[in-house]
């Protein structure tokens, strides 16, 4: 991965102005705060989801069932008046169950396209590691290309579009672990832990009666979020930052069996751009990179388990590689 790789992907846009960024920041913050009315105590993760959304990335959530993943995804979508769909992946799920299918309408005597659940702004794919590989790749194609092809026709997914996928870590039996090539397509991997005691209590408090999610309303418009995404893509990334990310990736490649790929570097830069917007800056600074890399890199890194874990490798990398 060279600087020019990142260059072509990220440049070619207008540089965003301070005003644009300020507007985007406001939009994003409103969403975050809105979601917090429903979700207790996961501010960091909410921010990460939003910055991924801004940076055109997708999230892998790894966690135990029942801590509110669905709630979270739904709250995010509802906050900007977006469509939310949930797909439960099972071993027999077909690709068309995800993408949608052409159905013959006997009345009109034509084939109609019935969009699958992937056609939403926020798609929650639950337990995607249980699905067969063909179905997984249908989802991944949608994530990558932002379009699906059914019977030779392509249909674009809506904008903004983000997939929040989960892997079930509890049942280890008879699951298909996601291959590294596919893990690499998720910008970030987050873990929602069990809430702290106080938070859990508060959560239960809230659930008594009507769940707040039912009453959650949108605080920003869909168009605002689209604009924010555009603005994010125009955030300035100067050469020192690109070089820093490259050096971080190189260091992980040296110290792990499989290190961060060039795609990881691009993802890190995009996430950093989102983070810069959240901080209200029209340019990326190393601190943004350092905030994002711990969730962008580790799931793409494979270590010989006797040594350090991927998280340790990433932490060591951040400590060792000079910032400059």
């Amino acid at each position: 991965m060279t600087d020019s790789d990142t260059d072509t992907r990220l440049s070619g846009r207008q540089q965003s102005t301070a005003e644009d960024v300020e507007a985007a920041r406001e939009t994003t913050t409103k969403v975050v705060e809105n979601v917090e009315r429903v979700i207790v105590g996961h501010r960091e993760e909410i921010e990460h989801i939003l910055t991924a959304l801004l940076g055109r990335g997708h999230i892998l959530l790894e966690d135990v069932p029942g801590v509110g993943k669905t709630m979270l995804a739904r709250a995010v979508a509802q906050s900007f008046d977006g469509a939310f769909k949930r797909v439960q992946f099972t071993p027999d799920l077909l690709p068309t169950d995800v993408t949608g299918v052409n159905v013959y309408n006997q009345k009109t005597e034509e084939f109609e396209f019935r969009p699958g659940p992937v056609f939403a702004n926020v798609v929650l794919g639950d337990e995607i590691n249980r699905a067969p590989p063909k179905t997984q790749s249908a989802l991944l194609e949608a994530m990558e290309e932002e379009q699906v092809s059914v019977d030779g026709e392509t249909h674009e997914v809506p904008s903004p579009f983000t997939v929040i996928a989960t892997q079930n870590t509890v049942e280890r039996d008879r699951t298909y672990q996601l291959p590294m090539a596919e893990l690499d397509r998720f910008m970030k991997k987050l873990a929602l832990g069990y809430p702290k005691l106080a938070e859990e209590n508060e959560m239960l408090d809230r659930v008594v009666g009507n769940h707040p999610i039912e009453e959650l309303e949108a605080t920003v418009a869909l168009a605002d979020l689209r604009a924010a995404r555009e603005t994010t893509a125009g955030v300035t990334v100067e050469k020192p930052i690109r070089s820093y990310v490259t050096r971080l990736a190189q260091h992980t490649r040296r110290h792990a069996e499989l290190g961060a790929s060039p795609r990881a570097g691009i993802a890190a830069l995009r996430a950093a751009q989102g983070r810069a917007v959240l901080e209200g800056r029209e340019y990326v600074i190393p601190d943004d990179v350092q905030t994002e890399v711990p969730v962008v890199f580790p799931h793409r890194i494979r270590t010989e388990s006797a040594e350090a874990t991927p998280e340790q490798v990433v932490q060591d990398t951040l400590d060792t590689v000079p910032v400059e």
Partner: protein
Amino acid sequence: MSAPTGSRSRSLPSLDISAERATRLVALSGVGLLMASYFSVLYYFVDVSPTSPLPLLAEAAVVLGLATYLSESLRARVAVAASLALLALGLTVYISSLPRWPPIVPLVGDAIALATGRSLLQLINVDLWVLGVAPGPLFLTWYLGLRRRYVSATLVGGATLGYLVLTTDASNVITLLGVVGGIVAVGVGDVDRRGDALAAAEPLAVLLALIIVVSAFVPFVYGGTGTAAGLSGFQGGGGAGTVEASLVSAGSQIGIQGNISLSPEVRFRVQSDRPQYWRIDSYNRYTGDGWVRTGSTRDYGGGQLDAPAGETRTLTQRYEVVDELGVAPAAWQPVSLSGAPVSAARVSDEGGFAVQGSLAPGTNYTVESRVPLADPSTLRSAGTDYPEAVSDRYTTIPSSTPDRLAERTARITANADNPYDTARVIEQWLANNREYSLDVERPEGDIADAFLFEMDAGYCTYFATTMVTMLRSQDVPARFVVGYTEGQRVDRDEYVVRGYDAHAWVEVYFPDVGWVRFDPTPAGPRQAAEGESLAEAREQNRTDIDTNDSTGGEWTPTETATPAPLTPPAEQGGGGPVRTITPPDNPVPDGIDRTAPNGSGPDATTLGDVSVPGEEGDSDGGIDWPSREEATLVGIAVFGIVVGIRRLGLLGRVYRAIWLRYQPSADSETDTERAFERLEYLLERRYRPREPGETPRQYLADIGADERARTVVAIHERARYAGQVTREEADEAMSLVDELVAS
């Protein structure tokens, strides 16, 4: 992939090849320096001997060329064997050139004995020895150096130099140069074999500077001196402070000292019909800064020694030792010795007696001597048909002696047409044109040349050395003699001899006569100095300076005694040939006595103030130039010090201090960058350096920096990560940093 690779941290990729060569070159020059140091000693031997140095130089060139040519093809074992063979061959040739072929065991014993501190200059045919011994070590050292076996090369060269150190022939300066060469060879050799850049050898330069400076002033070895002292190339034995010690106890070699003193202790008494110089022995080889007696001593074993050719008078002397004596004085030319020391007596190649061990106080012995008798006319007509043995042994001076000495001597003696007059002219000239002084600064370089052209005064060693050298430059056989003058006459035929009577004079050879004494030292001042020393000692009530009968002055005969004609009639009125003492009622100093009254005859040569126009006062105007060797050492030391200063980063620190306080203005981006660097440096000194993985924001937060620092960082952030910074912002950053620096 070939051998494990190490990457060099500071190599210049494009210059790699020449950088490697440079390293190897430096390592080889270290080897070369070591070789040069021991070679210079060998060269000195040849210089001092009658042979020209050319054969040695040619031999060295051939050997080095051979080693270079064969360095790639020859295997190490073969090279070692060849060097040993060369050495053996050379020694064999040398031994076969000796007049007497000694058996092996004493030979080896001699070699070891030399290593106990006896100069190789004593060797007969030392020039042949050098020619035989030089090739082996030279070949092997250079071969090993070219093969990159630097430690082995240093060992071989070091062993050679070491042997020369043990024989006292290598001076402090030369040895230090050789050691420096060895250190460079080993240290830079390691760098070369590792393939590192030459810069890795920088600590070596600092080490060498330290070594040179410290060893110049601090003795590390018992009885040693720093290199800066004792720069004499000729070690004459330690701690000589008196004339006597410098001459009498010198053994077979004499080093010429600087300041010196007189000791008034009584040494022995002599009973003799006539006063003589009580001679110890002579020296035949002049080295430029000292005298060596070559050859060996043999057991005396009693009986008669050879007498001189020509007319002689027999003189019997009875000696009584008063203070322990390591020598057996005897008037020239001694033919037999009897008494207690006979069994321990030895005879040298110069014809003098020596004793094994020393003679205890109270020892008595008797010597029978044949004193050559010849009047001036006989001596003048003696001719120049010298036996080969004599001219070989007594007419050579070192090739490095400046030509001007011979030229000046020729001018001074222009009017003398025979050796006798030549000798007398020189003797007079020196006595009249040089002052007597014990307070002398030992000159650098050739003693005789210095005394003739640069010095104003000296003591007997200087006078005698110069006269012998001047005579030899005119091909007149002459030698340097050491012993005692006649001492204090306490009775008609009794003399008390003290330490300060130790003296050096000259003997000149005349065919069919033998060796005749000359003494160029002005006697008056000498006797005056001796008298002073005695008076002082008497004031101090010292007990060892007088015998029962010596407290008075010189013995004078009573009126009843008729003074015997001590001088043959022919001696009167002219320059007396034989150095006999005139009657005591004319206690005239020796030297002046022989001055003929001006204009008394054709043999009164132009004496006295022989001033040759343009040549008086030839000294260098008092500048003491350091020798080449010393200059080299100083140069290396200075280089090392400079490197050391650089490595300590002192210069860098000074530069940084300035850079911190003053920032010239360029464009806004560069200015902001520099301001940030200054801030980082400042915070590093005040708190701690920033960790590699720490962002500036994290760093500031962690050290708790103040608002101004944060502002500067924010401005720098804009410049670096946003790519835009205004002139005002840059100025603000600079002035904030200025404030912080000042606070």
